[in-house]
C-alpha cells in the first residue's frame, strides 16, 4: 500500500492498522513523524500523548488551546503538555480542523447523553484504560484528549456538539514528535452520534523518519 504524499520520501519505522473499535499505541521518537490515515472517512481517532520518559508530562487540551488562542487543531497547531512544553506539532493536515474540546466517549457519559441502555456498549475510555495499562497508566492518567477527524463546532450561544465530519476516505494528517512520546489511541467505537458516521472503521498508523 502506498503512503501519503507528504511522507513519500520518509523511511518507514512502523506501519499498522488500528482495528475498528480498538486501541492502538506507539512510541514516536523526537523528530519522527506519525501519520494517521482516515482510511474510510470520518473516523474519530481519540488520542492522548505522554512524554515517553516521564508520563506525568502529558497532553493538555487547555494548554494547547491557550497556546494558540483557538479551540480547533489544524496545520501548524502545537500539541502542548500540562507543563506547556510542545509534545508534537501537526505539520500536515488534509482535513482542516480537528477537535480537542469534546473529550472521549465513556460508558458513563453514554448514560447521560443517550440513556442507560447504551452503558454496556464499548467506549473510548475502555480503550484508553486497556492500552494505558501497558504503560503503567491508569484512570488517574486520563485527561481531555484530541479527537482527530471529529467535528465539534461551538455556536455563538455556547451550544456545542458532535456533528457530521468534514473528513473523507484516504485523507491523512501528520504529526512530528518534538520529544520522545508515547501516543495512546482509541479508534472510536461510538455508534450513537455522527463522530464515526455511525460506522466505526479502521485507520492506518504510520511512523516515519525523514532522515
Amino acid at each position: 500500500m502506498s503512503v501519503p504524499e507528504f511522507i513519500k520520501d520518509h523511511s518507514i519505522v512502523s506501519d499498522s492498522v488500528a482495528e475498528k473499535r480498538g486501541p492502538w499505541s506507539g512510541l514516536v521518537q523526537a523528530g519522527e513523524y506519525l501519520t494517521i490515515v482516515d482510511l474510510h472517512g470520518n473516523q474519530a481517532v481519540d488520542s492522548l500523548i505522554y512524554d515517553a520518559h516521564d508520563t506525568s508530562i502529558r497532553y493538555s487540551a487547555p494548554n494547547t488551546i491557550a497556546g494558540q488562542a483557538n479551540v480547533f487543531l489544524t496545520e501548524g497547531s502545537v500539541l502542548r503538555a500540562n507543563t506547556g512544553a510542545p509534545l508534537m506539532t501537526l505539520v500536515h493536515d488534509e482535513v482542516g480542523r480537528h477537535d480537542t474540546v469534546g473529550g472521549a466517549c465513556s460508558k458513563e457519559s453514554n448514560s447521560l447523553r443517550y440513556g442507560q441502555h447504551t452503558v454496556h456498549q464499548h467506549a473510548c475510555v475502555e480503550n484508553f484504560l486497556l492500552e494505558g495499562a501497558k504503560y503503567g497508566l491508569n484512570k488517574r492518567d486520563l485527561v481531555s484528549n484530541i479527537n482527530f477527524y471529529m467535528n465539534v463546532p461551538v455556536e455563538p450561544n455556547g451550544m456545542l456538539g458532535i456533528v457530521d465530519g468534514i473528513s473523507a476516505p484516504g485523507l491523512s494528517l501528520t504529526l512530528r514528535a518534538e520529544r520522545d512520546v508515547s501516543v495512546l489511541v482509541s479508534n472510536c467505537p461510538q455508534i450513537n452520534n455522527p463522530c464515526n458516521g455511525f460506522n466505526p472503521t479502521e485507520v492506518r498508523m504510520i511512523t516515519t523518519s525523514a532522515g
Partner: protein
Amino acid sequence: MTQSTSSTEGAQAHARSMAGTVVETMATIPASEATGWPAEAVTAKKLWAETVAGGNYTALSVARGAVIELTDLYGDANAHLVAYNATDTSERLNVADTVKVQWQAYLGQGQLLLSDRGRALATILKDTSGKHDTFAGVSTLEGNRDRYGDGTAYCATPAGRELLVLAAAKVGLEPRDIPPTVGLFKGYFVQPDGSLISTGEAGAGAKVWLRAEMPLVLLIANAPHPLDAREGYHCTPLQIRIWDGSSNENQPQLELGLEAERALANTHAYIALKGI
C-alpha cells in the same frame, strides 16, 4: 514592643503575641464569626469562611449538600477549580464531559460540573457573573517565566498550575491527578473560526454558588488567566463562604437539562448504593 527571641520562652511569647491578627486574605475560624455572609445563609449552619489572595490557593474537603459561594470581591479574581469525589479521588472533574454532555460551552446557573463517571460533582445554583472559561485552563511555570519573569509558587507571580500542584499535594494527590480545570470570573468567547476572545469580567461582587452533590475535595487557585493580555500580574482576592445547604432552603429553583437530570439521578443512585 521589642521581644527577645533568644530563649524558648521569649520565642513563645513572640509567637503568641501575634494572636488576634486579622488580615483580609485568611480563613476565619469559626466561620460564624466572619462577615460577608449572604442573606440566604443567615439561618444556615456556617461551615467555612476564607478569602484567598491573588496568586494563592486553597484545598477544601466539603460535605455533600454544602453550598459554596465564591465572590470576586474587587472584580479581578480568577478562580481555577478542580473537584474530586472525596470518597474516591480517582473520580474527578471532566471538563470535556461537562461541556459536551450538557451541549453548552459557557457555564451558568443550572449547569453541573460533571465527573468522569457520569455523575454530578456540583450544581451551579446561582451565577451573577456569566464570565467564565472552560477552554484555556491555568497558567504554567514556563508560561509565567516568559510573561512575568517567574512563575514559581513562592514568587510574586505564581502560575496557576504551580498553585494547584501544592493544593493537590495537601490532600495526597500528585501532579498527574490535576485534570483540565474550569476558570470562573474571566470570560472567553469562541468565535466561529475557533479563536478565543476575552469578554472580560462582570465587576466587583460577582458571585457563583455551587452545591456539592457528593462529598468533594475542592482545589482552587486564584491566579491570572493564561491569556490575560495586560501588562503585569493582576489578580484580586477571592472570597469563599460555605454553609450547610442540605435542607435546600433559600436555594433557587433550577431548570435542568435532560442530561443534567440524568447525572443527578446517577449521583443519587451512587450515593445510596455506597451508603454515603
